[in-house]
């Protein structure tokens, strides 16, 4: 192993940290958390405004903060944290210095400057075009420029990740194939390149349009290419948080994937097919053919879904295999009962896995089916779905891994460990409520992105069913709970960095007292004797099939064919 720059070995975990990579991981993660706090606060205000009786924001503020919430919570927080994951998965796990750290810092600052510019433009009030910024709605030119600058920064960071892989290969810091967690991060990086390229293709002409150099942007052309960026950016999240699931299983349990080849294959499905799922946002557009829609969603997307189901089986399977090896063999679920539920690293990750599969995964397939998509297209069902994938899936996973990373990176003990134990539960229950109640309201026809759910200002009045208003109220209560959980997370993280008890420093040259975690090595658990996991998988499949056909039945009733 060749180490050219300053580095250290963590005395507790045995993890290798290159000095520059460590600083970049810290700065990217902390910056991400700041934007999570801002975006999360706006999210609570969204939920309270949708609550019919509370309706806290006036219309102009609702659309303004909805734009900022989407950008900060869906893009800025997550991409900053993903940069931290990419540097961790390359430099730390491959035990090599970060390639081109100066470029990585340039990428960081561009991302920060871009995010600040876009936020300022939105908060000034003349760019309330929402996250999707569909033409003919026009934002301030600096709104688009900010996103472009942010994306260029993220692209630079992504190429530093690729450079670090090359460096590790040259310096032979690992043997054979990349470790699985790094391979998952590679999947995220590949999808990021396509995402950012798509963003450039559509946002550069949109910037020129906002400046008056281009007369017209075709809305359908914009939507098609924009979603190659908008949806694929969420596929970066999926790949990154699935990688982190494997990382946490390895760190907490010393678990190895049931079959590394199968897990790798599942990531390959993501690389090939996951980005094509962007088409499900366009399933009701008359200008695109059914062939295009069905190939991209009902053929290609299902292979990506297969990838997710494989991960959904192999991650808990690897934990079960590791737990059974330790002697937790009683019955089907002793391995799960005896898991460290008081450790937020595990509890957050496992709840994220369950909610991502049951709430986000199943509903994603429903929305990706051309026929049944029409029932809930552009209703609150859509944000209900993606709060299950992005918030319960990605954000909760990133919170969970932060409980491991922040004390390791900052060499401090966790601040308020008692609160940390509960934080993941508070947040997970809140987010599950947001997701379920928004989907329930959407199923009753409540429109997304609509400030006035009473239609009080409408020329032609309309009443949603009373149950829809009840679900919106429950969504508001869940939003408050998720806000409490999110704020607790930010307080614990900031408190740990500033006031956490300092751990004793061990010189970098000293040998690591702890064994190196399993994340450095390729290899499988060597068993598929995981009956508990297979039972859980069958419950999942049963739920999936039942819910899928319930929606077809519902469609038949909508069309009065029954």
């Amino acid at each position, binding site marked *: 192993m060749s180490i050219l720059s300053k580095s250290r070995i963590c005395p507790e975990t045995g993890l290798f940290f290159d000095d520059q990579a460590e600083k970049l991981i810290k700065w990217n993660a902390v910056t991400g958390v700041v934007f999570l706090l801002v975006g999360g606060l706006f999210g609570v205000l969204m939920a309270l405004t949708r609550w019919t009786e509370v309706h806290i924001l006036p219309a102009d503020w609702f659309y303004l903060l909805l734009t900022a919430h989407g950008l900060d919570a869906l893009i800025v927080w997550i991409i900053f944290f993903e940069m931290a994951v990419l540097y961790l998965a390359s430099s730390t796990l491959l035990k090599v210095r970060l390639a081109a750290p100066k470029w990585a810092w340039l990428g960081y600052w561009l991302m920060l400057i871009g995010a600040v510019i876009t936020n300022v433009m939105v908060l000034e009030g003349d760019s309330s075009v929402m996250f999707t910024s569909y033409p003919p709605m026009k934002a301030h030119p600096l709104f688009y420029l900010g996103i472009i600058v942010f994306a260029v920064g993220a692209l630079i960071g992504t190429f530093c990740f690729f450079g670090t892989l090359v460096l590790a290969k040259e310096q032979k810091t690992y043997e054979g194939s990349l470790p699985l967690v790094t391979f998952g991060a590679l*999947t995220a990086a*590949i999808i990021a*390149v*396509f995402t950012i390229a798509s963003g450039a293709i559509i946002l550069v002409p949109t910037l020129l349009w906002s400046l008056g150099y281009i007369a017209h942007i*075709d809305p359908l*052309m914009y939507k098609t290419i924009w979603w*190659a960026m908008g949806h694929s950016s969420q596929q970066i999240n999926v790949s990154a948080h699935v990688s982190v699931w494997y990382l946490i299983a390895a760190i907490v349990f010393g678990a190895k994937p049931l079959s590394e080849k199968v897990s790798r294959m599942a990531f*390959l499905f993501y690389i*090939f097919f996951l980005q094509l799922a962007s*088409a499900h946002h366009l399933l009701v557009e008359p200008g695109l053919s059914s062939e295009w829609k069905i190939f991209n969603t009902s053929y290609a997307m299902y292979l990506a879904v297969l990838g997710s189901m494989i991960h959904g089986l192999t991650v808990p399977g690897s934990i079960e295999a590791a737990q059974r090896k330790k002697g937790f063999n009683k019955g089907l679920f002793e391995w799960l009962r005896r898991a460290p539920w008081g450790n937020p690293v595990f509890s957050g990750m496992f709840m994220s896995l369950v909610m991502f599969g049951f709430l986000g995964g199943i509903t994603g397939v429903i929305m990706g089916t051309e026929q049944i998509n029409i029932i809930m297209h552009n209703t609150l069902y859509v944000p209900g779905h993606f709060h299950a994938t992005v918030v319960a899936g990605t954000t909760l996973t990133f919170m969970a891994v932060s409980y491991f990373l922040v004390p390791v990176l900052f060499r401090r003990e966790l601040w308020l460990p008692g609160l940390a134990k509960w934080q993941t539960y508070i947040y997970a229950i809140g987010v599950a409520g947001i997701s379920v109640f928004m989907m329930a309201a959407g199923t009753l026809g409540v429109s997304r992105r609509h400030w006035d759910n009473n239609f009080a200002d409408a020329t032609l009045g309309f009443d949603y069913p009373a149950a829809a208003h009840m679900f919106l109220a429950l969504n508001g209560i869940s939003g408050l709970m998720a806000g409490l959980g999110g704020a607790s997370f930010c307080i614990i993280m900031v408190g740990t960095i500033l006031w956490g008890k300092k751990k004793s420093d061990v010189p970098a040259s000293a040998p690591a007292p702890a064994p190196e975690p399993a994340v450095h090595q390729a290899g499988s658990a060597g068993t598929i004797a995981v009956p508990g996991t297979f039972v859980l998988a069958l419950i999942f499949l049963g739920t999936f099939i039942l819910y899928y056909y319930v929606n077809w039945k519902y469609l038949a009733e909508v069309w009065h064919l029954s």
Partner: protein
Amino acid sequence: MTSQDNNTPDGEHEHIPFFQRMMDNPFLLLFIGVVMPTVFYILWGVMEIATIPIATY
């Protein structure tokens, strides 16, 4: 040693299957991961939109 082979500890050459080599090549995966959605999603979609006839009044 060819690009398809690796040395084993006893000096013999171990054949690495094509699929394995593809999985171990980040830049080939990057190429595939960009080309697939560009062709099937963007180019195909843009061609369909571009060939929509202009409405006549």
